[in-house]
Protein backbone atom coordinates (compact mmCIF):
# COMPACT_ATOMS: atom_id res chain seq x y z
CA UNK A 1 0.00 0.00 0.00
CA UNK A 2 2.81 2.42 0.78
CA UNK A 3 4.31 1.53 -2.58
CA UNK A 4 1.87 4.05 -4.04
CA UNK A 5 3.96 6.92 -2.68
CA UNK A 6 7.31 5.76 -3.96
CA UNK A 7 6.25 4.59 -7.39
CA UNK A 8 3.68 7.28 -8.16
CA UNK A 9 6.20 8.99 -10.40
CA UNK A 10 9.21 7.27 -11.91
CA UNK A 11 12.13 8.76 -10.02
CA UNK A 12 14.28 11.04 -12.15
CA UNK A 13 18.04 10.48 -12.28
CA UNK A 14 18.75 13.45 -10.01
CA UNK A 15 16.26 12.09 -7.54
CA UNK A 16 18.05 8.77 -7.55
CA UNK A 17 21.34 10.49 -6.72
CA UNK A 18 19.77 12.53 -3.97
CA UNK A 19 18.31 9.40 -2.44
CA UNK A 20 21.50 7.38 -2.82
CA UNK A 21 22.40 7.42 0.91
CA UNK A 22 18.96 6.12 1.68
CA UNK A 23 19.23 3.26 -0.83
CA UNK A 24 22.67 2.37 0.44
CA UNK A 25 21.50 2.38 4.04
CA UNK A 26 18.52 0.17 3.24
CA UNK A 27 20.09 -2.24 0.82
CA UNK A 28 23.71 -2.75 1.82
CA UNK A 29 23.12 -4.41 5.21
CA UNK A 30 20.11 -6.41 4.03
CA UNK A 31 21.85 -7.55 0.86
CA UNK A 32 25.03 -8.46 2.72
CA UNK A 33 23.05 -10.52 5.19
CA UNK A 34 20.86 -12.23 2.60
CA UNK A 35 23.72 -12.76 0.16
CA UNK A 36 25.99 -14.32 2.76
CA UNK A 37 23.26 -16.71 3.88
CA UNK A 38 22.48 -17.89 0.37
CA UNK A 39 25.98 -17.91 -1.08
CA UNK A 40 27.58 -19.49 2.00
CA UNK A 41 25.00 -22.26 2.00
CA UNK A 42 25.54 -22.95 -1.70
CA UNK A 43 29.29 -22.72 -1.19
CA UNK A 44 29.30 -25.28 1.61
CA UNK A 45 26.97 -27.58 -0.32
CA UNK A 46 29.26 -27.29 -3.35
CA UNK A 47 32.37 -28.12 -1.29
CA UNK A 48 30.58 -31.20 0.02
CA UNK A 49 30.54 -32.60 -3.53
CA UNK A 50 34.22 -31.92 -4.24
CA UNK A 51 37.31 -33.96 -3.31
CA UNK A 52 38.61 -31.02 -1.18
CA UNK A 53 40.93 -31.88 1.65
CA UNK A 54 43.31 -29.23 2.96
CA UNK A 55 42.12 -26.54 0.53
CA UNK A 56 38.96 -26.38 -1.56
CA UNK A 57 39.44 -27.79 -5.03
CA UNK A 58 37.15 -28.12 -7.99
CA UNK A 59 36.01 -31.54 -9.08
CA UNK A 60 33.05 -33.75 -8.50
CA UNK A 61 32.91 -36.83 -6.35
CA UNK A 62 29.15 -37.17 -6.20
CA UNK A 63 27.94 -38.44 -2.87
CA UNK A 64 31.24 -40.01 -1.88
CA UNK A 65 31.85 -37.53 0.96
CA UNK A 66 28.38 -38.22 2.30
CA UNK A 67 28.71 -41.99 2.17
CA UNK A 68 32.08 -41.88 3.86
CA UNK A 69 30.79 -39.60 6.64
CA UNK A 70 27.68 -41.71 7.12
CA UNK A 71 29.77 -44.87 7.22
CA UNK A 72 32.23 -43.48 9.77
CA UNK A 73 31.95 -44.67 13.35
CA UNK A 74 32.44 -41.11 14.50
CA UNK A 75 29.28 -39.92 12.76
CA UNK A 76 27.23 -42.97 13.72
CA UNK A 77 28.03 -42.46 17.39
CA UNK A 78 27.38 -38.74 17.02
CA UNK A 79 24.00 -39.40 15.44
CA UNK A 80 22.95 -41.95 18.07
CA UNK A 81 24.06 -39.52 20.75
CA UNK A 82 22.06 -36.75 19.13
CA UNK A 83 18.91 -38.87 19.18
CA UNK A 84 19.40 -39.73 22.84
CA UNK A 85 20.60 -36.30 23.93
CA UNK A 86 17.99 -34.47 21.85
CA UNK A 87 15.01 -36.45 23.11
CA UNK A 88 16.11 -36.72 26.74
CA UNK A 89 17.11 -33.08 26.98
CA UNK A 90 13.99 -31.74 25.27
CA UNK A 91 11.61 -33.95 27.24
CA UNK A 92 13.22 -33.32 30.62
CA UNK A 93 13.59 -29.60 30.11
CA UNK A 94 9.93 -29.41 29.04
CA UNK A 95 8.87 -31.22 32.20
CA UNK A 96 11.15 -29.14 34.41
CA UNK A 97 10.12 -25.90 32.73
CA UNK A 98 6.42 -26.70 32.95
CA UNK A 99 6.68 -27.76 36.58
CA UNK A 100 8.54 -24.56 37.49
CA UNK A 101 6.04 -22.44 35.57
CA UNK A 102 3.07 -24.08 37.31
CA UNK A 103 4.73 -23.65 40.70
CA UNK A 104 5.51 -19.99 40.03
CA UNK A 105 1.93 -19.49 38.88
CA UNK A 106 0.62 -20.28 42.38
CA UNK A 107 0.89 -16.65 43.53
CA UNK A 108 3.88 -17.44 45.66
CA UNK A 109 5.97 -14.87 47.49
CA UNK A 110 9.29 -13.97 45.93
CA UNK A 111 8.20 -14.94 42.44
CA UNK A 112 10.45 -12.35 40.80
CA UNK A 113 13.53 -13.52 42.67
CA UNK A 114 12.79 -17.16 41.90
CA UNK A 115 12.20 -16.42 38.23
CA UNK A 116 15.54 -14.62 38.06
CA UNK A 117 17.24 -17.62 39.66
CA UNK A 118 15.77 -20.06 37.15
CA UNK A 119 16.72 -17.83 34.22
CA UNK A 120 20.21 -16.64 35.09
CA UNK A 121 21.98 -19.67 33.53
CA UNK A 122 20.76 -18.42 30.15
CA UNK A 123 22.94 -15.34 30.53
CA UNK A 124 26.05 -17.46 31.04
CA UNK A 125 28.04 -18.93 28.18
CA UNK A 126 27.96 -22.65 27.46
CA UNK A 127 31.71 -22.66 27.90
CA UNK A 128 31.31 -21.51 31.50
CA UNK A 129 28.44 -23.92 32.14
CA UNK A 130 30.39 -26.81 30.65
CA UNK A 131 33.53 -25.98 32.63
CA UNK A 132 31.71 -25.68 35.93
CA UNK A 133 29.74 -28.89 35.45
CA UNK A 134 32.89 -30.71 34.42
CA UNK A 135 34.23 -29.91 37.90
CA UNK A 136 31.06 -30.85 39.74
CA UNK A 137 30.65 -34.13 37.89
CA UNK A 138 34.32 -35.09 37.97
CA UNK A 139 34.43 -38.01 40.42
CA UNK A 140 37.93 -37.03 41.61
CA UNK A 141 37.04 -33.50 42.73
CA UNK A 142 33.29 -33.07 42.47
CA UNK A 143 30.14 -34.47 44.01
CA UNK A 144 31.49 -38.00 44.39
CA UNK A 145 34.60 -36.75 46.21
CA UNK A 146 32.46 -34.62 48.51
CA UNK A 147 30.29 -37.62 49.40
CA UNK A 148 33.40 -39.67 50.13
CA UNK A 149 34.89 -36.91 52.28
CA UNK A 150 31.65 -36.76 54.23
CA UNK A 151 31.97 -40.45 54.98
CA UNK A 152 29.67 -42.00 52.36
CA UNK A 153 32.37 -44.28 50.97
CA UNK A 154 30.14 -46.38 48.74
CA UNK A 155 28.70 -43.37 46.90
CA UNK A 156 29.30 -43.68 43.17
CA UNK A 157 28.69 -40.96 40.58
CA UNK A 158 31.21 -41.28 37.78
CA UNK A 159 29.03 -40.57 34.72
CA UNK A 160 31.54 -38.05 33.36
CA UNK A 161 34.18 -40.73 32.85
CA UNK A 162 31.79 -43.59 32.17
CA UNK A 163 31.40 -44.32 28.46
CA UNK A 164 27.80 -45.42 28.78
CA UNK A 165 26.60 -42.59 30.98
CA UNK A 166 28.74 -39.63 29.87
CA UNK A 167 26.11 -38.35 27.44
CA UNK A 168 23.78 -37.87 30.42
CA UNK A 169 26.16 -35.34 31.94
CA UNK A 170 25.54 -33.20 28.88
CA UNK A 171 21.81 -33.68 29.36
CA UNK A 172 22.12 -32.53 32.98
CA UNK A 173 24.16 -29.43 32.15
CA UNK A 174 21.92 -28.54 29.20
CA UNK A 175 18.79 -28.82 31.33
CA UNK A 176 20.36 -26.69 34.05
CA UNK A 177 21.23 -24.07 31.46
CA UNK A 178 18.04 -23.83 29.45
CA UNK A 179 15.01 -25.23 31.25
CA UNK A 180 14.46 -21.67 32.46
CA UNK A 181 13.70 -20.77 28.88
CA UNK A 182 10.86 -23.32 28.77
CA UNK A 183 9.67 -21.99 32.12
CA UNK A 184 9.58 -18.39 30.85
CA UNK A 185 7.48 -19.31 27.81
CA UNK A 186 5.15 -21.60 29.76
CA UNK A 187 4.66 -19.00 32.46
CA UNK A 188 3.72 -16.42 29.84
CA UNK A 189 1.28 -18.98 28.43
CA UNK A 190 -0.25 -19.76 31.83
CA UNK A 191 -0.70 -16.07 32.53
CA UNK A 192 -2.59 -15.57 29.30
CA UNK A 193 -5.17 -18.31 29.97
CA UNK A 194 -8.60 -16.77 30.13
CA UNK A 195 -9.60 -16.37 33.79
CA UNK A 196 -13.24 -17.07 32.93
CA UNK A 197 -12.42 -20.55 31.68
CA UNK A 198 -10.68 -21.32 34.96
CA UNK A 199 -13.56 -19.92 36.96
CA UNK A 200 -16.05 -21.94 34.93
CA UNK A 201 -14.08 -25.12 35.60
CA UNK A 202 -14.03 -24.37 39.31
CA UNK A 203 -17.75 -23.73 39.38
CA UNK A 204 -18.19 -27.09 37.71
CA UNK A 205 -16.43 -28.52 40.74
CA UNK A 206 -13.06 -29.32 39.21
CA UNK A 207 -10.19 -29.43 41.70
CA UNK A 208 -6.89 -27.68 41.06
CA UNK A 209 -5.16 -30.71 39.53
CA UNK A 210 -8.14 -31.50 37.32
CA UNK A 211 -8.39 -27.87 36.25
CA UNK A 212 -4.76 -27.86 35.21
CA UNK A 213 -4.91 -31.18 33.44
CA UNK A 214 -8.17 -30.70 31.61
CA UNK A 215 -8.49 -26.95 31.13
CA UNK A 216 -5.21 -25.06 31.39
CA UNK A 217 -2.56 -27.41 30.00
CA UNK A 218 -4.38 -28.10 26.71
CA UNK A 219 -4.14 -24.38 25.91
CA UNK A 220 -0.33 -24.63 26.16
CA UNK A 221 0.08 -26.93 23.14
CA UNK A 222 1.25 -24.26 20.71
CA UNK A 223 3.84 -23.01 23.20
CA UNK A 224 4.99 -26.55 23.86
CA UNK A 225 5.65 -27.13 20.19
CA UNK A 226 7.58 -23.87 19.91
CA UNK A 227 9.70 -24.77 22.93
CA UNK A 228 10.38 -28.25 21.54
CA UNK A 229 11.50 -26.87 18.19
CA UNK A 230 13.79 -24.24 19.69
CA UNK A 231 15.34 -26.71 22.14
CA UNK A 232 15.83 -29.23 19.34
CA UNK A 233 17.51 -26.57 17.26
CA UNK A 234 19.91 -26.01 20.13
CA UNK A 235 20.48 -29.75 20.60
CA UNK A 236 21.25 -30.33 16.93
CA UNK A 237 23.91 -27.65 16.81
CA UNK A 238 25.24 -28.12 20.36
CA UNK A 239 28.98 -27.58 20.34
CA UNK A 240 30.34 -25.27 23.06
CA UNK A 241 28.74 -27.15 25.92
CA UNK A 242 30.12 -30.52 24.85
CA UNK A 243 33.49 -29.03 24.00
CA UNK A 244 33.82 -27.61 27.52
CA UNK A 245 32.21 -30.48 29.42
CA UNK A 246 33.51 -33.70 27.86
CA UNK A 247 35.17 -32.66 24.59
CA UNK A 248 33.44 -35.65 23.03
CA UNK A 249 34.98 -38.08 25.48
CA UNK A 250 35.70 -40.40 27.11
CA UNK A 251 37.04 -41.63 23.79
CA UNK A 252 34.34 -40.57 21.37
CA UNK A 253 31.47 -41.56 23.67
CA UNK A 254 29.87 -38.11 23.70
CA UNK A 255 30.56 -37.16 20.10
CA UNK A 256 27.86 -34.98 18.52
CA UNK A 257 27.40 -33.87 14.89
CA UNK A 258 28.74 -30.35 15.45
CA UNK A 259 31.94 -31.79 16.90
CA UNK A 260 32.33 -34.15 13.96
CA UNK A 261 32.01 -31.21 11.56
CA UNK A 262 34.65 -29.22 13.42
CA UNK A 263 36.94 -32.19 13.68
CA UNK A 264 36.74 -32.98 9.97
CA UNK A 265 37.12 -29.38 8.84
CA UNK A 266 39.82 -28.06 11.12
CA UNK A 267 41.60 -30.97 12.71
CA UNK A 268 41.70 -33.58 9.96
CA UNK A 269 41.66 -31.08 7.06
CA UNK A 270 38.94 -33.04 5.26
CA UNK A 271 37.04 -30.04 3.94
CA UNK A 272 34.81 -32.04 1.60
CA UNK A 273 33.73 -34.46 4.29
CA UNK A 274 33.40 -31.69 6.86
CA UNK A 275 31.12 -29.78 4.50
CA UNK A 276 29.11 -32.97 3.90
CA UNK A 277 28.70 -33.42 7.66
CA UNK A 278 27.58 -29.78 7.95
CA UNK A 279 24.98 -30.36 5.22
CA UNK A 280 23.80 -33.47 7.05
CA UNK A 281 23.35 -31.33 10.16
CA UNK A 282 21.30 -28.91 8.10
CA UNK A 283 19.14 -31.78 6.83
CA UNK A 284 18.51 -33.00 10.37
CA UNK A 285 17.53 -29.46 11.31
CA UNK A 286 15.21 -29.19 8.31
CA UNK A 287 13.53 -32.45 9.34
CA UNK A 288 12.50 -30.57 12.48
CA UNK A 289 11.91 -27.10 11.06
CA UNK A 290 9.94 -27.86 7.90
CA UNK A 291 7.08 -29.69 9.67
CA UNK A 292 7.10 -26.86 12.21
CA UNK A 293 6.87 -24.24 9.46
CA UNK A 294 4.02 -26.17 7.83
CA UNK A 295 2.22 -26.39 11.16
CA UNK A 296 2.68 -22.66 11.74
CA UNK A 297 1.33 -21.97 8.27
CA UNK A 298 -1.81 -24.06 8.87
CA UNK A 299 -2.31 -22.41 12.27
CA UNK A 300 -2.08 -18.97 10.77
CA UNK A 301 -4.52 -19.81 8.01
CA UNK A 302 -6.98 -21.18 10.51
CA UNK A 303 -6.57 -18.04 12.61
CA UNK A 304 -7.35 -15.76 9.67
CA UNK A 305 -10.30 -17.86 8.52
CA UNK A 306 -11.83 -18.19 11.96
Amino acid sequence: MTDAVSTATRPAASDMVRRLPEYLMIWVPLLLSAAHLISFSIWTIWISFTPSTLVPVTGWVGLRNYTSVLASRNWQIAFDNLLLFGSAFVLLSLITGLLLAILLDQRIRGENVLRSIFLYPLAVSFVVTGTVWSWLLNPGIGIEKLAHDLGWASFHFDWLVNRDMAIWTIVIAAIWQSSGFAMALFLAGLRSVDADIIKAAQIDGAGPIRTYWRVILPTLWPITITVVVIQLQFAISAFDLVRALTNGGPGIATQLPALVVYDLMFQRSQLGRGAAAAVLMLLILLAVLLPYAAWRYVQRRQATHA
Partner: protein
Amino acid sequence: MRDRSFAPSRILIYLVVTLFAAAYLAPLVVVVLNSLRTNEEIAQGSMIGWPQHLAWSNYALAWSGFCVAETCAGIRPYMLNSALITIPATIFSTMLGAVAGYAVSLWRFRGDSWIYGIVTLGLFLPQQMRLLPWTFVLRDIGLINTLSGLVLIHTIQGLSFTVLFCRNYYVAIPHELIRAARIDGAGFFRIFWRIILPLSSPILIVTVIWQFTHIWNEFLYGVTFTTGQQQPVTAALIALSAAIADIPQHGVQSAAVIIAALPTLLIYLLGGRYFVRGLTAGAVK
Protein backbone atom coordinates in the same frame (compact mmCIF):
# COMPACT_ATOMS: atom_id res chain seq x y z
CA MET B 1 -6.12 -23.06 43.40
CA ARG B 2 -4.75 -19.55 43.60
CA ASP B 3 -5.41 -18.71 47.22
CA ARG B 4 -2.96 -17.39 49.71
CA SER B 5 -3.71 -19.69 52.65
CA PHE B 6 -0.98 -21.75 54.22
CA ALA B 7 -2.40 -25.19 53.67
CA PRO B 8 0.01 -28.15 53.59
CA SER B 9 -0.10 -28.01 49.80
CA ARG B 10 1.28 -24.45 49.93
CA ILE B 11 4.13 -25.56 52.13
CA LEU B 12 4.89 -28.33 49.67
CA ILE B 13 4.96 -25.81 46.81
CA TYR B 14 7.42 -23.59 48.67
CA LEU B 15 9.54 -26.59 49.55
CA VAL B 16 9.79 -27.80 45.94
CA VAL B 17 10.47 -24.32 44.57
CA THR B 18 13.19 -23.75 47.17
CA LEU B 19 14.86 -27.04 46.30
CA PHE B 20 14.85 -26.15 42.63
CA ALA B 21 16.22 -22.69 43.34
CA ALA B 22 19.00 -24.24 45.39
CA ALA B 23 19.87 -26.61 42.55
CA TYR B 24 20.01 -23.73 40.06
CA LEU B 25 22.13 -21.60 42.35
CA ALA B 26 24.46 -24.39 43.51
CA PRO B 27 26.93 -24.30 40.59
CA LEU B 28 27.32 -20.53 40.92
CA VAL B 29 27.79 -20.73 44.67
CA VAL B 30 30.34 -23.53 44.30
CA VAL B 31 32.40 -21.53 41.81
CA VAL B 32 32.24 -18.34 43.86
CA LEU B 33 33.37 -20.23 46.97
CA ASN B 34 36.14 -21.98 45.06
CA SER B 35 37.38 -18.72 43.64
CA LEU B 36 38.16 -17.79 47.25
CA ARG B 37 39.88 -21.05 48.22
CA THR B 38 43.53 -21.81 47.63
CA ASN B 39 44.47 -24.44 45.06
CA GLU B 40 45.95 -26.61 47.81
CA GLU B 41 42.81 -26.43 49.89
CA ILE B 42 40.71 -27.61 46.93
CA ALA B 43 43.21 -30.33 46.07
CA GLN B 44 43.01 -31.73 49.60
CA GLY B 45 39.24 -31.85 49.67
CA SER B 46 36.79 -31.42 46.81
CA MET B 47 35.50 -28.60 44.64
CA ILE B 48 32.59 -28.24 47.01
CA GLY B 49 33.53 -26.61 50.27
CA TRP B 50 33.69 -23.50 52.40
CA PRO B 51 36.83 -21.31 52.14
CA GLN B 52 39.05 -21.58 55.22
CA HIS B 53 40.38 -18.11 54.65
CA LEU B 54 39.57 -15.87 51.75
CA ALA B 55 42.18 -16.24 49.03
CA TRP B 56 41.55 -13.01 47.14
CA SER B 57 44.89 -13.52 45.41
CA ASN B 58 43.11 -15.97 43.06
CA TYR B 59 41.44 -13.02 41.42
CA ALA B 60 44.68 -11.12 40.97
CA LEU B 61 46.29 -14.20 39.44
CA ALA B 62 43.32 -14.94 37.23
CA TRP B 63 43.13 -11.36 36.04
CA SER B 64 46.76 -10.79 35.16
CA GLY B 65 49.01 -13.56 36.41
CA PHE B 66 48.57 -17.12 35.25
CA CYS B 67 49.84 -18.52 31.98
CA VAL B 68 47.88 -19.63 28.92
CA ALA B 69 49.98 -21.03 26.09
CA GLU B 70 53.27 -19.48 27.15
CA THR B 71 51.97 -15.99 27.80
CA CYS B 72 51.50 -15.10 31.42
CA ALA B 73 49.14 -12.17 31.37
CA GLY B 74 46.12 -13.79 32.97
CA ILE B 75 42.68 -13.44 31.51
CA ARG B 76 42.90 -9.67 31.03
CA PRO B 77 44.00 -9.56 27.36
CA TYR B 78 41.23 -11.99 26.42
CA MET B 79 38.63 -10.00 28.32
CA LEU B 80 39.82 -6.97 26.39
CA ASN B 81 39.54 -8.91 23.11
CA SER B 82 36.01 -9.96 23.95
CA ALA B 83 35.10 -6.37 24.77
CA LEU B 84 36.67 -5.09 21.55
CA ILE B 85 34.68 -7.66 19.57
CA THR B 86 31.40 -7.48 21.46
CA ILE B 87 30.92 -3.75 21.90
CA PRO B 88 31.43 -2.63 18.26
CA ALA B 89 29.57 -5.65 16.84
CA THR B 90 26.64 -5.00 19.19
CA ILE B 91 26.48 -1.32 18.27
CA PHE B 92 26.81 -1.89 14.51
CA SER B 93 24.35 -4.76 14.29
CA THR B 94 21.80 -2.94 16.43
CA MET B 95 22.02 0.33 14.49
CA LEU B 96 21.89 -1.32 11.09
CA GLY B 97 19.14 -3.63 12.29
CA ALA B 98 17.05 -0.72 13.52
CA VAL B 99 17.32 1.12 10.20
CA ALA B 100 16.63 -2.03 8.18
CA GLY B 101 13.78 -3.06 10.48
CA TYR B 102 12.23 0.37 9.98
CA ALA B 103 12.75 0.15 6.21
CA VAL B 104 11.01 -3.21 5.84
CA SER B 105 8.16 -2.49 8.25
CA LEU B 106 7.24 1.15 7.70
CA TRP B 107 9.07 2.70 4.78
CA ARG B 108 8.46 -0.27 2.50
CA PHE B 109 10.11 -0.76 -0.84
CA ARG B 110 9.86 -3.22 -3.66
CA GLY B 111 11.07 -6.66 -2.60
CA ASP B 112 11.03 -5.81 1.10
CA SER B 113 9.18 -8.88 2.30
CA TRP B 114 11.37 -11.12 0.18
CA ILE B 115 14.63 -9.82 1.50
CA TYR B 116 13.28 -9.77 5.03
CA GLY B 117 12.27 -13.40 4.69
CA ILE B 118 15.73 -14.40 3.51
CA VAL B 119 17.49 -12.42 6.24
CA THR B 120 15.46 -14.10 8.97
CA LEU B 121 16.47 -17.52 7.64
CA GLY B 122 19.75 -16.66 9.35
CA LEU B 123 18.07 -17.53 12.66
CA PHE B 124 18.00 -21.15 11.58
CA LEU B 125 21.04 -21.71 9.38
CA PRO B 126 23.60 -23.58 11.51
CA GLN B 127 26.96 -21.91 12.04
CA GLN B 128 28.61 -25.02 10.65
CA MET B 129 27.22 -24.17 7.20
CA ARG B 130 29.09 -20.87 7.27
CA LEU B 131 32.39 -21.90 8.84
CA LEU B 132 34.33 -22.70 5.67
CA PRO B 133 33.06 -19.76 3.59
CA TRP B 134 33.87 -17.34 6.41
CA THR B 135 37.34 -18.85 6.66
CA PHE B 136 37.99 -18.21 2.96
CA VAL B 137 36.41 -14.76 2.98
CA LEU B 138 38.33 -13.64 6.05
CA ARG B 139 41.56 -14.97 4.56
CA ASP B 140 40.94 -13.16 1.26
CA ILE B 141 40.24 -9.81 2.87
CA GLY B 142 43.09 -10.23 5.35
CA LEU B 143 40.95 -10.34 8.48
CA ILE B 144 41.67 -13.90 9.57
CA ASN B 145 42.93 -14.00 13.15
CA THR B 146 41.90 -10.41 13.82
CA LEU B 147 39.33 -8.91 16.12
CA SER B 148 37.94 -6.90 13.19
CA GLY B 149 37.15 -10.16 11.42
CA LEU B 150 35.00 -11.31 14.32
CA VAL B 151 33.33 -7.90 14.52
CA LEU B 152 32.44 -8.24 10.83
CA ILE B 153 31.04 -11.74 11.27
CA HIS B 154 28.97 -10.88 14.31
CA THR B 155 27.66 -7.70 12.71
CA ILE B 156 26.47 -9.43 9.55
CA GLN B 157 25.13 -12.51 11.30
CA GLY B 158 23.57 -10.48 14.09
CA LEU B 159 21.47 -8.61 11.53
CA SER B 160 19.13 -11.61 11.28
CA PHE B 161 18.17 -11.11 14.92
CA THR B 162 18.29 -7.33 15.10
CA VAL B 163 16.22 -6.83 11.95
CA LEU B 164 13.64 -9.32 13.25
CA PHE B 165 13.41 -7.70 16.69
CA CYS B 166 13.13 -4.16 15.33
CA ARG B 167 10.80 -5.04 12.46
CA ASN B 168 8.37 -6.82 14.80
CA TYR B 169 8.41 -3.82 17.09
CA TYR B 170 8.00 -1.16 14.38
CA VAL B 171 5.12 -2.99 12.70
CA ALA B 172 2.93 -1.82 15.57
CA ILE B 173 3.63 1.86 14.82
CA PRO B 174 0.67 3.29 12.87
CA HIS B 175 1.43 3.68 9.18
CA GLU B 176 -0.57 6.91 9.11
CA LEU B 177 2.16 8.54 11.17
CA ILE B 178 4.72 7.76 8.49
CA ARG B 179 2.43 8.65 5.61
CA ALA B 180 1.63 12.03 7.10
CA ALA B 181 5.31 12.76 7.60
CA ARG B 182 6.06 11.78 4.00
CA ILE B 183 3.35 14.04 2.68
CA ASP B 184 4.95 16.84 4.70
CA GLY B 185 8.13 16.12 2.75
CA ALA B 186 10.12 14.26 5.40
CA GLY B 187 12.59 11.81 3.93
CA PHE B 188 13.79 8.38 5.01
CA PHE B 189 16.40 9.57 7.51
CA ARG B 190 14.41 12.45 8.94
CA ILE B 191 11.48 10.15 9.72
CA PHE B 192 13.86 7.69 11.31
CA TRP B 193 15.52 10.32 13.51
CA ARG B 194 12.45 12.30 14.41
CA ILE B 195 9.71 9.69 14.68
CA ILE B 196 11.09 6.17 14.84
CA LEU B 197 14.15 6.54 17.03
CA PRO B 198 12.40 8.38 19.87
CA LEU B 199 9.90 5.50 20.05
CA SER B 200 12.58 2.83 19.95
CA SER B 201 14.27 2.74 23.35
CA PRO B 202 12.55 -0.44 24.63
CA ILE B 203 13.38 -2.49 21.56
CA LEU B 204 16.90 -1.07 21.32
CA ILE B 205 17.58 -2.11 24.91
CA VAL B 206 16.24 -5.60 24.20
CA THR B 207 18.36 -5.86 21.06
CA VAL B 208 21.55 -4.55 22.66
CA ILE B 209 21.22 -6.94 25.60
CA TRP B 210 20.51 -9.87 23.30
CA GLN B 211 23.40 -9.11 20.98
CA PHE B 212 25.87 -8.36 23.75
CA THR B 213 25.06 -11.58 25.59
CA HIS B 214 25.26 -13.71 22.48
CA ILE B 215 28.43 -12.25 21.07
CA TRP B 216 30.20 -12.24 24.42
CA ASN B 217 29.27 -15.88 24.98
CA GLU B 218 30.06 -17.04 21.45
CA PHE B 219 32.75 -19.66 21.18
CA LEU B 220 32.81 -21.50 17.82
CA TYR B 221 33.79 -18.55 15.62
CA GLY B 222 36.21 -17.28 18.22
CA VAL B 223 38.07 -20.57 18.42
CA THR B 224 37.95 -21.15 14.65
CA PHE B 225 39.08 -17.78 13.34
CA THR B 226 41.52 -16.62 16.00
CA THR B 227 44.49 -18.11 17.78
CA GLY B 228 46.69 -17.23 20.73
CA GLN B 229 46.60 -13.61 21.76
CA GLN B 230 43.67 -12.74 19.51
CA GLN B 231 41.19 -15.11 21.11
CA PRO B 232 38.03 -14.02 22.92
CA VAL B 233 37.64 -15.03 26.54
CA THR B 234 35.44 -18.07 25.89
CA ALA B 235 38.15 -19.65 23.75
CA ALA B 236 40.80 -18.64 26.29
CA LEU B 237 38.91 -20.42 29.08
CA ILE B 238 39.03 -23.66 27.11
CA ALA B 239 42.72 -23.15 26.36
CA LEU B 240 43.26 -22.47 30.06
CA SER B 241 41.65 -25.72 31.18
CA ALA B 242 43.70 -27.62 28.63
CA ALA B 243 46.92 -25.83 29.59
CA ILE B 244 46.74 -26.57 33.30
CA ALA B 245 45.14 -30.00 33.14
CA ASP B 246 48.37 -31.48 34.52
CA ILE B 247 48.66 -29.25 37.56
CA PRO B 248 45.10 -28.19 38.34
CA GLN B 249 44.67 -24.72 39.78
CA HIS B 250 40.99 -24.83 40.48
CA GLY B 251 40.95 -21.78 42.70
CA VAL B 252 42.46 -19.55 40.03
CA GLN B 253 40.38 -21.19 37.31
CA SER B 254 37.21 -20.55 39.28
CA ALA B 255 38.15 -16.91 39.61
CA ALA B 256 38.78 -16.75 35.86
CA VAL B 257 35.37 -18.30 35.16
CA ILE B 258 33.67 -15.76 37.42
CA ILE B 259 35.46 -12.86 35.73
CA ALA B 260 34.57 -14.17 32.26
CA ALA B 261 30.92 -14.64 33.17
CA LEU B 262 30.60 -11.34 35.04
CA PRO B 263 29.75 -8.95 32.15
CA THR B 264 26.74 -10.91 30.92
CA LEU B 265 25.62 -11.74 34.46
CA LEU B 266 25.71 -8.05 35.39
CA ILE B 267 23.74 -7.14 32.29
CA TYR B 268 21.21 -9.82 33.20
CA LEU B 269 20.89 -8.48 36.74
CA LEU B 270 20.48 -4.90 35.53
CA GLY B 271 18.22 -5.56 32.56
CA GLY B 272 16.56 -8.88 33.35
CA ARG B 273 13.16 -7.75 32.14
CA TYR B 274 14.56 -6.84 28.72
CA PHE B 275 16.63 -10.00 28.62
CA VAL B 276 13.52 -12.14 29.05
CA ARG B 277 11.67 -10.09 26.45
CA GLY B 278 14.46 -10.82 23.99
CA LEU B 279 14.19 -14.54 24.74
CA THR B 280 10.49 -14.63 24.06
CA ALA B 281 10.77 -12.29 21.06
CA GLY B 282 13.32 -14.64 19.56
CA ALA B 283 11.01 -17.56 20.28
CA VAL B 284 7.94 -16.25 18.49
CA LYS B 285 9.66 -15.89 15.18
